């Protein structure tokens, strides 16, 4: 410990002998660390945005459905509206919000045109707590009750059907017996969505109205549940799994949308690769700086060896010097990254390339998500790899022959 303090002081002073070099290296480390963290936060923000946009637009964190629904999403595969144990579980503290829906493929026909859509029979109050739709009405109103006779369409669909608020449309689908099921609706509301596919592809009506139209009283195709954190739905899945009846299964969001599900692990891998790549680019400069620092200090190192310092002490001095450099760089880099995040807290407007982002299912505002886990990972990675990178120059320094070192001109 005592020796460590002595070496640390020497290392600290040595660091500022060539302040120009130290400042350049510090800038490089700072930039590297900043880039590691800021970029990671951007990527996380992007993925978070994508996943949240997607799962909180409609699916929810967890869904309860008929086991056959995934393979054959038809109106035949329904589950009963929740009751008993399931209802109790849904009303429990782990569940933030839940609602039931009837989802069916349907054709909407106006006087001018017709389109294929997903018809969603919803409970307005439940939907309000769970999905975007109730908040994004641009004209008219949202549904008021499960047996509301009206229908809500997306802005783009209204355009395509050449219809408007207050007009009537006919919705055609089929009941479980494959009989044609149709009904006329008055358009009571028009919604917008960040994702144009939603405006085009979804129409909303009261759940009871739709159940009546499709002749499936008391049955729904999905029960969507929102927990408090989409990253951790294991508990919720397990809890509901114990409560559902035999003819239903519980699926977390990453099972509902395999594509979204594959995003998270993929991004974890990407973040690690990015951190390591930036560090490698840095490491050349770091090793170079240390080699130079050792090289110009050969005589002094020889002197210390002659005075009776153990090689291990010389080695620890170089390593401490390297770690000091890294720690300062990390602190400034972390701080800058944090400041950048504060500055971007309201989100980065990406509307210039918005069309393209839409294609990736992304919204046009990117809010970076700084995760403690990533910051820790970046810092720990830099320290560990930095330690490893400084071993070689440090070891070489400790192997100098004191006589040669001292007599070196």
């Amino acid at each position, binding site marked *: 410990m*005592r*020796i460590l303090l*002595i070496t640390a002081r*020497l290392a600290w*002073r*040595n660091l500022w*002998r060539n302040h120009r070099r130290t400042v350049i290296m510090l800038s490089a480390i700072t930039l590297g660390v900043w880039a590691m963290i800021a970029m990671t936060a951007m990527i996380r923000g992007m993925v978070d945005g994508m996943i949240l946009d997607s799962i909180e637009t409609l699916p929810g964190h967890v869904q309860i459905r008929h086991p056959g629904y995934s393979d054959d999403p038809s109106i035949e595969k329904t589950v009963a509206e929740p009751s008993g144990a399931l209802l109790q579980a849904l009303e429990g503290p782990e569940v933030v919000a839940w609602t039931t829906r009837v989802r069916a493929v349907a054709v909407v026909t106006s006087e001018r045109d017709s389109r294929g859509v997903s018809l969603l029979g919803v409970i307005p109050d439940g939907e309000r707590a769970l999905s975007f739709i109730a908040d994004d009405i641009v004209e008219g109103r949202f549904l008021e009750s499960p047996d509301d006779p009206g229908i809500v369409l997306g802005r783009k669909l209204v355009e395509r059907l050449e219809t408007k608020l207050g007009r009537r449309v006919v919705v055609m689908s089929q009941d479980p017996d494959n009989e044609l099921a149709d009904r006329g609706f008055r358009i009571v509301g028009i919604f917008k969505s960040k994702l144009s596919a939603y405006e085009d592809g979804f129409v909303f009506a009261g759940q009871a109205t739709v159940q009546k139209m499709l002749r499936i009283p008391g049955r729904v195709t999905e029960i969507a549940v929102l927990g408090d954190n989409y990253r951790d739905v294991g508990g919720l899945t397990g809890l509901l799994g114990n409560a559902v009846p035999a003819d239903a299964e519980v699926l977390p969001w990453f099972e509902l949308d395999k594509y979204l599900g594959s995003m998270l692990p993929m991004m974890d891998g990407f973040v690690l690769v990015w951190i390591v790549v930036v560090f490698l680019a840095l490491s050349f400069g770091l090793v170079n700086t240390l080699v130079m620092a050792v090289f110009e200090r050969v*005589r*002094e190192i020889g*002197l*210390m*060896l*002659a*005075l*009776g*310092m*153990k*090689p291990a*002490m010389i080695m620890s001095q170089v390593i401490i010097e390297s770690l000091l450099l890294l720690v300062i760089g990390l602190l400034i880099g972390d701080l800058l990254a944090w400041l950048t995040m504060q500055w971007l807290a309201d989100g980065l407007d990406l509307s210039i390339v918005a069309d393209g982002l839409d294609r990736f299912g992304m919204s046009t505002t990117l809010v970076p998500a700084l995760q403690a886990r990533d910051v820790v990972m970046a810092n720990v990675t830099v320290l560990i790899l930095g330690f490893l990178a400084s071993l070689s120059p440090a070891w070489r320094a400790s192997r100098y022959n*004191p*006589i040669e070192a*001292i007599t070196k001109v």
Partner: protein
Amino acid sequence: MTAVKCIEVCRTFKQGDHKVIGLDHVSIEFAEGDFVCLSAPSGGGKTTLLNAIGGLDTPDSGEIYVAGKRIDNMSKGDLADMRLHNIGFVFQAYNLIPVLTAQENIEFVMQVQGVPAAERSKLSLDILKEVGLEGLANRRPGKMSGGQQQRVAVARAIVSRPALVLADEPTANLDSHATEQLMELFVELNTRHSTTFVMATHDQRVMNYARRVIKMLDGRIAGDIEQDPV
């Protein structure tokens, strides 16, 4: 008591294809409290002998004892410890660690030895006074003259009271006034603390202060003269 004893010490170096003889069957003893000058032309073997005694270099054959302990077969770590506790070094130049002040340079060895801070500070200030550098405690080496730097180096070498001080051309970079001052300091320390001094030099002014001058040539002892110092 003998401070240093060398028996049949040999050391050869390779310089390209040539074999250069550094030490050729050197046997010699220095008594405790001795003030010895190793004198030789360049390549005569004085620095090689000094390095061997200091454990900086290991001889090819022969035995070396310092303070009664055999050192030629010691491990690197033991040698480092031996140097740390028993030997003080003064080199020709680059004696000091540039990032430490005069006082810190002097305290450095004690610090590694584990001497408590208060004692360290007292000892180092005392010794600075003794070498005549009172008031320069907080200067860094870059802000001191060559003579002052060498005196700090001497202070560091003797502060932990080693039995033996080895000095390799300590005056090579000094003018005659500084040389005189440094040598007088050596003599004073030698008599006051009865520290053994072994110096390698080819400076006649330095030799004049020695009580014993050992002349070396081509790695052999060519003469061993007891003299009265000037």
